[in-house]
Structures are given as structure tokens and as C-alpha cells.
């Protein structure tokens, strides 16, 4: 919209100095002059205009000022509320976990035993920590190549008409509640894996020194591996959606130049698209990792909830969130406090992962800014 059109659309009695005052006020607030004019116009048409005929200008101005202030404080209070909530959660977690921190200290991180009924109770975070990290790592190892592969296909190879349906199908995966994944994993995927995939790997690697114990038997309906696979499916949409978005930011001229000198699609993806979007993709992966670390319900269903560290990925295990979900209701005293401490650990772990993701995305933005 040009300035002339603006003035044309404005009510006649606001032409001149009054309009300028409004424009300046809103321009100052919004920085974006164009948008400012639009908003001023709406405001003028709305409340102030009817009164403007009979009342003087200052009253109209005051009404705006009051509205502005109220808006400013409402939004500010909302923002502060979030910070207070976050702080409150951290503080209450620390307070709740304090007895366990005092009792176990750093040994909590290195103890494998989880015996709440022993005298005295021995509680250690090692096996849930191990389960949390292992399932997340395996899930990422599966989800990253598949997720990026889908994104490449969608942006580079897929015929235009199929892009939307496939993209939406992937995004719908993110909308399925985790309990559904849990039930599906429990009733369908678990038996399928235990009867087909697991025996195959067990036979394949039987007798091989290290792999033999990693893929050791017996097959189980509930295992770390099954949980990892479900997690991989759950985080796939995050990786795909973010990768697809950052792949779309690659300037076409770069890709066209590469195709122009005779590169294959693989070479374009490998040497142009991925290097250009590397940091963004890593950011997306980190967000997915954050989700995988904290996922509770689906994992609780299929991981087997057993506080043991086994060399085999086909053995049952537990994760921090699964342990809390299954034991919290019936816990008390030191047991409950230890579960709180587990929660705190997960909080810290997830915080660092998400902070790393933010940092990388920030670097990407800076890089993009320089190039622009």
C-alpha cells in the first residue's frame, strides 16, 4: 500500500495533523511503518472515530494510551508467568529430590541397583540413565537417515502432485497420541519383532564376539530395541519437517548451477544441499532427540520396566520417564525423592540438548544473515 492510498482511505476529518500524530505513535511502536498505518487505521475506524466528533483529541489519545498500557502489561505478565512456572518447577524438583541428593550424593549416578524395599533402600540412576540414552541413540540412528531421506525425496525428487499428501502423512505421524504408539507397539510390533526380526539378528550374530552379546537372545516382546524403534517412528516427523523446511531455503541458483555442471541428484544433495543446511538439520535432530529422551507413555508400555543393565539390546530395560510413570503413585519417602531426582536429571539432560539445538539454530540464522 502506498502512502497516497493510505490517505485516500482515511476518514476525512482525520486528515492533517491528527493523522500524523497517530502515524508517528504507531510507527514508533511497531517500527514497521506500513503495518503501523494499517493498525492505526483500524483503530481509528473502530472506537475512537465515533467519539472524535464530540470529544477532544486528548481523550482519544488517552484512550489509546490506556489500551496500550493494558496490552503491554497483559503480555508482560503472561511472559513472566512462564518464567515463574519454569522456576517453580525447578525449585520444587530440587526440594523434592533433596533427601535423595543428601542420602546418595554422586553415587546415585553410578549405582545400578534400584531396591526401594531393601533395608536401607539402595537407589541408583545408572540403569534408567543407560536406558534413556541408549534408546534415544538407537532411535536417532534409525530416524536421522530415514527422516532426512524423506525430506530429500520430498524437496528434490518427488513429483509435485505427491508432495503434499506425503508431507501431510508424515506430519500426521506427529499428531498420533503416544499412548496409541504404545498400544500398537505392545500388541502388534512387539510380537512381530520378537518372532521375526530379533531371531534373525540373534542367529546372524551368534558367536561373533561383541555383536553376539549386543544382539544376544532370547527374543523379547518388551525390550530396549522395540522401544527404540517406536521412538524412531515417533521422532521421524520432527526430523523430516524441519529438514524439509531448511532444504527449501537452499537458493535454487546453487542447485541449478550444480545440476548445470552435470552433478547427479545425490551429488547435489551431498555437496550442496546438506552442507548449506547442515546446522539447521542438526538443530532439528536435537529437537527430536529432546522428544525421544522425555517420551513416557509409549516407552513405558514396551520397554519392559526392568532396572537392569544388560549387554543385549533385546533385553528389557527402563528409562527415566518410564520409571517415574510406573513407580511414582505407590512411592513414598526416599523412594519418591529418588524418583524426583531422576526427574531432575532428565530435566537437566533435556535442557542441555534443547539448549544445544537453540545454539545451533542461532548460528544458522547468523550465517543466513551474513549471506543475505
Amino acid at each position: 500500500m502506498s502512502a497516497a492510498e493510505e490517505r485516500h482511505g482515511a476518514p476525512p476529518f482525520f486528515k492533517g495533523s491528527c493523522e500524523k500524530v497517530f502515524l508517528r505513535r504507531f510507527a514508533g511502536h511497531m517500527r514497521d511503518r506500513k503495518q503501523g498505518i494499517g493498525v492505526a487505521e483500524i483503530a481509528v475506524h473502530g472506537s475512537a472515530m465515533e467519539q472524535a466528533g464530540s470529544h477532544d483529541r486528548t481523550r482519544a489519545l488517552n484512550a489509546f494510551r490506556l489500551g496500550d498500557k493494558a496490552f503491554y502489561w497483559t503480555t508482560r505478565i503472561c511472559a513472566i508467568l512462564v518464567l515463574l512456572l519454569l522456576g517453580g518447577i525447578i525449585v520444587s524438583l530440587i526440594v523434592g529430590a533433596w533427601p535423595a541428593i543428601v542420602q546418595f550424593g554422586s553415587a546415585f549416578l553410578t549405582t545400578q541397583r534400584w531396591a526401594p524395599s531393601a533395608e536401607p533402600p539402595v537407589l541408583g540412576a545408572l540403569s534408567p540413565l543407560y536406558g534413556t540414552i541408549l534408546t534415544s541413540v538407537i532411535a536417532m540412528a534409525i530416524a536421522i537417515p530415514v527422516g532426512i531421506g524423506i525430506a530429500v525425496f520430498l524437496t528434490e525428487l518427488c513429483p509435485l502432485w505427491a508432495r503434499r499428501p506425503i508431507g501431510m502423512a508424515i506430519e500426521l505421524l506427529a499428531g498420533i497420541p503416544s499412548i496409541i504408539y504404545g498400544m500398537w507397539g505392545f500388541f502388534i510390533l512387539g510380537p512381530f519383532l520378537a518372532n521375526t526380526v530379533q531371531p534373525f539378528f540373534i542367529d546372524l550374530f551368534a558367536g561373533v564376539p561383541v555383536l553376539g552379546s549386543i544382539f544376544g537372545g532370547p527374543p523379547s516382546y518388551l525390550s530396549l530395541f522395540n522401544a527404540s524403534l517406536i521412538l524412531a517412528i515417533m521422532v521421524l516427523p520432527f526430523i523430516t519437517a524441519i529438514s524439509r523446511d531448511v532444504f527449501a531455503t537452499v537458493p535454487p541458483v546453487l542447485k541449478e548451477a550444480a545440476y548445470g555442471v552435470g552433478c547427479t541428484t545425490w551429488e547435489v544433495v551431498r555437496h550442496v544441499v546438506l552442507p548449506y543446511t547442515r546446522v539447521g538439520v542438526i538443530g532439528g535432530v536435537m529437537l527430536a532427540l529432546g522428544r525421544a529422551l522425555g517420551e513416557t507413555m509409549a516407552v513405558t508400555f514396551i520397554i519392559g520396566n526392568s532396572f537392569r543393565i544388560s549387554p543385549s539390546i533385546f533385553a528389557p530395560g527402563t528409562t527415566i520417564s518410564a520409571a517415574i510413570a510406573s513407580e511414582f503413585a505407590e512411592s513414598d519417602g526416599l523412594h519418591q525423592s529418588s524418583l524426583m531426582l531422576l526427574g531432575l536429571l532428565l530435566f537437566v539432560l533435556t535442557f542441555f540438548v534443547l539448549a544445544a539445538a537453540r545454539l545451533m539454530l542461532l548460528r544458522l540464522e547468523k550465517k543466513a544473515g551474513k549471506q543475505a
Partner: protein
Amino acid sequence: MNFFKAIAAAGLIAASASAFSLPARAADITGAGATFPFPVYSKWADAYKKETGNGLNYQSIGSGAGIKQILAKTVTFGATDAPLKADKLDKDGLLQWPMVMGAIVPVVNVEGVRPGELILSGELLGDIYLGKVTKWDDPAIAKLNPKLKLPSAAIAVVHRSDGSGTSFNFTNYLSKVNAEWKSRVGEGTAVEWPAGVGAKGNEGVSGNVGQTRNSIGYVEYAYAKQNKLVYAALINKAGKTVQPTVAAFQAAAANADWAHAPGYYVILTDQPGEASWPITAATFILMQKEPVDKAASTEAIKFFKWSFEKGGKMAEELDYIPMPESVVKQIEKTWTSEIRS
């Protein structure tokens, strides 16, 4: 205008609601705790409401949480499967009594084995849960089951992953009959399981066992019956093989010495008697001796009294065992002497 309409509507709704609940002027009784007796409590509550108009709001959030709620005085009564010891009751000013009994049965999923065919001893059950007996064709199992042809497959052990009164009674039994279990694992609502996978709730365990081949688990009897799971027979303290039947549960219950147990602290596992089912369990009610809301407390006692008198048959329909009459009389005496209303 709209505002007045809203008020009028709210008033109408409130009026109609109070009209419906007029017979129940007394507030609904609130209780929270064990999941194990939830089916029978809710059945009683329905029948009681029909008869008297007074409702019961029972939340089956688990024994531990039930104890916490009654200590915090947020509910009229708490319910727990693992009874509190007398000194703890005195310290917190609580009154405890058994409300109804039930049984826990081992369930298996082994091809060709029908309900009640497999025979296990307590010690063997302990060894399986310790991870010492790992195959179905282990000589220890074969010795007790010479007629059964069991596969040479690994035993998939299933236990509860959440803290539970069912686990408490099961581990209590294993501690009584298996010395190694007692020293290595012990008893509790949540213990350090040496083997197997954990599943949430009775329904989780029955689901898992129903689905996993060559598995073994333990559930409350009603769940085994409803889900048509293959239960195993057990060898009891007297050395006799017993099937899980209501008669066997009652035999175990009849043996219990309630009269001389302070705070009714009796755990019904491994009871003597030739016909006794070895893993029988009572579930308990906890109330404040000096309740905050005396009216609600009186109402709750009325409900329990009614349940003892008229709820026996309903309990049996759901495979629970009502308390014997002599115990009920004693409990009623305790109410009048201990609770101030």
C-alpha cells in the same frame, strides 16, 4: 442481558441438581487407595446408593497413595493392601480393619498347558522369579509335573512395574517360602526384581502373559478368571496341592487369627491347613480415629456396616471372599470404641 440469562440458567441447573440429590443430603463419602478391591467397592457403592441415596466416591489410585491421602486427611477413608503395623497406626491416630479378602494366582502361557494342570511349589516359584530356573523343562519343574510335556523354552517372567499391594502379598509369600528370595529381594510394594519384565497393573500383567508365549506372571484371581488365563496350582504349607477356588481362599482366611492381631495386622499368605490357598490376601480400610468431618466419617461407617451385612454375596460374585462373621463382629466393636463421632 446475556449475563442475566447465564445466571438464570446456572440457577436452574443448580436447582435441578439439588432436586435430584435431595435424598442424599449428606455429602458423598470419599475414599482413595488400593486398586485390588476397586471392583467390589464400586459394586457395593452402586447398590448402597440405590438403597440409601448416599454415594461413595472411591478413587483407586494405589495403596501407597491411599495411605498418603488419609494421613493428609483429604479423604474420609483410605484403602491399602499392605496393612500398617500397630505402632504406625497409633502414631498417626489411624484405625485399620480388613474389609474383604481376595487371592493372587500364578498364571502361565505355555502351549498345551490347561488351567490348573501345572503344579508349582512356593520355593520353585521363588526360584523362577529369582531367575535361577530359566527353562520350562527344568528338572525342578518336571519333578512336580511328571505328566506334563513342557517345552525347552526360556521362561518369560512378568512382574508388576508399579508399586502394588498385589506385589506386596506375592513377595511376602515368596519371602516366607524361599530363603534366598528373603535375603536377596525381600518383600515390598516395589522390590528389586532379579528377573523378567515389568507390566503396569493387574491388567498389564494379564495382558502380557496372555500375549507372550512361555511366560509366567501373578495376578489377582478375578483378572485371571475374566481374562481366561491359565492359572497354576500351588503346593501349600501343609504340602498339599491346591487349586485356586473360593473354598481354598476361604480355608486360608478361616485360619487367620484376627482376634489377637493388634490393628488387625494379619497377612494371609502361607497359611496352615490342608485346603488353604497359599497366596490369599486381605485388603484394609484406614480411617482417622478423630475425624475432621465427623458427619462424613459416620456416613462412611454406615456404608461399611451395610457392606459387611449385605455385601457378602456381591463380593463372592466378583470372586472376593467376605470377612467371616466373627471378625465382622469384632470390627464393629472396634468402631464403637475407637472412632469418636
